[in-house]
């Protein structure tokens, strides 16, 4: 199921499919099947979004499962004001950021120190096979402020449109463009320094 389509007809169909899915998720007898459809439809995109924030696979798995559980438990409070995917993306983002905050507290590190630590740990991660330049890029991203980091990952890696990121992060398109521009400049400077 592709949610972020380009044609208006495709978007309309997607919205209708989302509406049906949400309605089924709220009905006890259809809930289980609808939840399976939901997980299978969104698991990979949400996983990669979370993974790029927390970097470690085991952490990403924890956060992803908690995200789906929260979606399942709170589906009644989803009023349909935004797209289902934007809502889930928001939950995933918040879950991932709180996970990192808790992790920083447990390790008695501030958030910058934690980001630097987890990006450095990628070298030894069996689930990371990036070359040196990809490692450097991850370290450069780790040094960005939180919001710029999110925007850069969503725009550069996930290729979401500004309008879509705007709905997820509830930030204006203008501010997103400025943040993305700043983020690319900082990454460029970091990579040149190395």
């Amino acid at each position: 199921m592709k949610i972020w389509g380009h044609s208006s007809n495709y978007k309309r169909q997607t919205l209708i499919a989302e509406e049906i899915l949400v309605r089924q998720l709220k009905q006890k007898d259809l809930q289980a099947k609808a939840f399976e459809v939901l997980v299978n439809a969104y698991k990979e995109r949400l996983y990669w979004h979370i993974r790029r924030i927390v970097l470690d696979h085991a952490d990403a798995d924890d956060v992803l499962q908690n995200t789906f559980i929260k979606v399942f438990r709170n589906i009644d409070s989803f009023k349909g004001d935004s797209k289902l995917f934007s809502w889930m993306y928001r939950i995933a983002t918040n879950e991932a950021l709180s996970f990192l905050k808790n992790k920083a507290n447990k390790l008695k590190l501030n958030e910058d120190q934690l980001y630097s630590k987890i990006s450095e740990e990628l070298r030894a991660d069996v689930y990371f096979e990036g070359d040196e330049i990809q490692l450097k890029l991850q370290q450069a991203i780790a040094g960005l402020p939180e919001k710029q980091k999110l925007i850069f990952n969503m725009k550069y890696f996930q290729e979401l449109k500004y309008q879509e990121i705007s709905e997820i992060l509830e930030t204006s398109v203008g501010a997103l463009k400025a943040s993305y521009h700043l983020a690319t400049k900082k990454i460029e400077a970091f990579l040149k320094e190395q």
Partner: protein
Amino acid sequence: MQHLDKHNGFKTPAGYFEKLSGRIMDNIAQDASTVSQEEAFQVPEHYFNNLHSEIIQKLEKQDTKVIPIKSFKKYYYTAASIAAILLLLFGLTWNTTKTITYGDLANSDIDQYFENHELSFSAYDLAEILSLEELDYNDVLENALAEESILEYLNTNVRDLNELNLTNDE
């Protein structure tokens, strides 16, 4: 004119504009396109296939934790009711027991308390508590004050004793 292609027949490769920013970013590095958007992150084999069942297991585990609490709820209400009744009964019994009053305190205990504790009452506090009608000179003086001593004091300190117009009755 309307049917003419605005790009005059020029075309771009499929997905050119969508990938443009990514390719520009690739060129940021020293060697062009060495930083790719290719996934350097890996996932364990079959991870996504098993994900749904793992989430369901986690959900069920959380639910089983919740159910016993709900089923014990009625016992909590019963226990709370019994506790309330017992408390009421004991409360009433306690009220019927003889309560200690001020009169039950031995005077010696009160004296001892005042002697052992620094109460630091100011003159104002004392005036508030004690009524003048109930007081006598001898209540606040350690040695009894003789009438002669008073007259002698007045004679020495008041310029004209006669101005006070004291009579024997006063």
